[in-house]
């Protein structure tokens, strides 16, 4: 009986949050209607914008996989002077206002050495700056969960440091790495504040939604928003499904 009361209270409180998180999305899809969602998807501007968003977020994830995973491994495996401070610095992008991050990136990189303003490079940089900590932190936690002695054993069996990393550390931290990459990617998809400062054009989906809302109102921006959410959720679920199948 006591358990039942406890569960009822917790389920009630949880339901409030679940409803808050899902109702706006359901309402968006219902108000736009699926015929309208699919029709908007065929609009070249919308299609290009969603594709650009997915592509830029993916590039950002790839770049941080190559550079951030070694960084996460170093943090997870080694103690060094100022490590806590260093970790805090890596988390700063999560805390700063996104428009401020956009301004900082603009000042740092719009120096004429490479095309930054209104380019895919600029968009990728903005997404990467603000979402990289999600992948780095995910990978760091993943590596910490892998007992370092697995790597020791592998070395006594003849594997050098690189081979140990690729055959032991990486596969055993895989779930956290994929979760971190998905978090970073999805965070990148939604990036608006920093992107809009650096590259209004070509328009990523969040900028297009904002642009249509400003110029044509809710009726024209809502289908684009619904399309973007639908595509993101489908890709997100597909990756999780594939990961779970591989795990089995």
């Amino acid at each position, binding site marked *: 009986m006591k358990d039942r009361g406890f569960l009822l209270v917790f389920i009630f409180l949880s339901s409030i949050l679940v409803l808050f998180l899902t109702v706006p999305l359901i309402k968006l899809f219902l108000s736009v209607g699926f015929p309208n969602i699919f029709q908007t998807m065929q609009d070249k501007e919308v299609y290009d914008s969603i594709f650009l968003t997915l592509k830029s977020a993916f590039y950002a994830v790839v770049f941080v996989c190559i550079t951030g995973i070694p960084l996460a491994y170093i943090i997870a495996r080694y103690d060094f002077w100022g490590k806590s401070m260093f970790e805090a610095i890596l988390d700063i992008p999560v805390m700063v206002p996104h428009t401020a991050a956009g301004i900082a990136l603009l000042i740092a990189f719009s120096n004429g050495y490479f095309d930054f303003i209104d380019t895919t490079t600029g968009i990728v940089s903005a997404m990467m700056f603000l979402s990289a900590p999600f992948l780095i932190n995910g990978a760091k936690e993943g590596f910490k969960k892998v*007992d370092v*002695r*697995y790597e*020791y*054993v*592998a*070395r*006594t*069996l*003849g*594997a*050098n440091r690189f*081979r140990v990393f690729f*055959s*032991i550390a990486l*596969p*055993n931290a*895989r779930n956290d790495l994929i979760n971190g990459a998905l978090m970073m990617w999805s965070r990148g998809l939604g990036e608006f504040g920093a992107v809009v400062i650096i590259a209004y054009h070509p328009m990523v989906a969040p900028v297009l939604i904002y642009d249509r809302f400003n110029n044509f109102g809710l009726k024209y921006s809502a289908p684009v928003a619904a399309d973007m959410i639908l595509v993101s959720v489908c890709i997100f679920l597909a990756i999780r499904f594939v990961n779970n199948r591989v795990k089995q």
Partner: protein
Amino acid sequence: MLKVKNLFLKKGDFVLHKLSFEIKENSYFVLLGQTGSGKTMLLESIAGLQSIEGDIYFNGKDITNLPPEKRNFGFVYQNFLLFPNMNVKDNITYSAKFKKIKDKDELFDDLVDFLHIKNILQRDIKHLSGGEKQRVAIARAIYSRPRLLLLDEPLSAVDPTFRNSIMKSLKDLIKRYNITILHVTHNFREASFLADRVAVMIDGEILQMGGAYEVLNEPKNIKVARFLGFKNVFPTSILGFNQKDKFFTVDPNRIKFGDEKKEDLYCFACKIENVLGISDHYKIFARVGDEVFFCKVHESVFDGKILKEGDETNIYIDKKDVTFI
């Protein structure tokens, strides 16, 4: 074969104090020590997994700065650490990806047969018992054809009913695979069964080293005696000697009660503090001055004496049963 010279390592609270010892080829060397005495760290140092001061030589060659993958030493940890992302067979053959293994197919078949793991080769390591994990970990290490096998408490996570058979298998590894074994444990029964030579390590220091029988039966140090479970460790002043900081020990089974007085016996007046009946024998705690002797008396001997708590009597010990520390 393996020569460790002045090995020093400090890591957190652990310190290895300038350890020096040698292990002969094709021998079984057991390093005995309490939990937390630095045994695992010593094995990791020998395997090249810790940065150390001092020197390590193998077959006369200085290997102190050689990376672990070039030393060709096998390592089996206490909890076996089978790679979770591989099944049993892939775990065993992992080393074949990185080095050339002589007669690897014959070796694999022989290991599978010797360690009785044929029926679990395709199994996920999550579904193995402690004993199975241990056999797979040993197979994985031996498959890499190591020159020296380092075993870190390999029997502590194994069901006690299988320990004897596994100990026999461990002993057989030396001849069968032409290797040398360094085994660390806190269990001196393991040491007495397995070891050709034993070293006792306490708080990062090797306090005694020698033949297994000698070390386990004739401790040279009071810390070693206490660690090895010697019960009656007392200062020699009780026996009438004047040397300070000298101790002796006597087996609880060798202490007798009665009034017998002979030249070759030590005899002390005592007061019985406690008598515990344990199936076929009695445990008796007898106070002699400031010390309490622990004695084990077989039922048949004890029955006639009718000793009970508070009785005053004599204990006597044959001089040949006294071991000086």
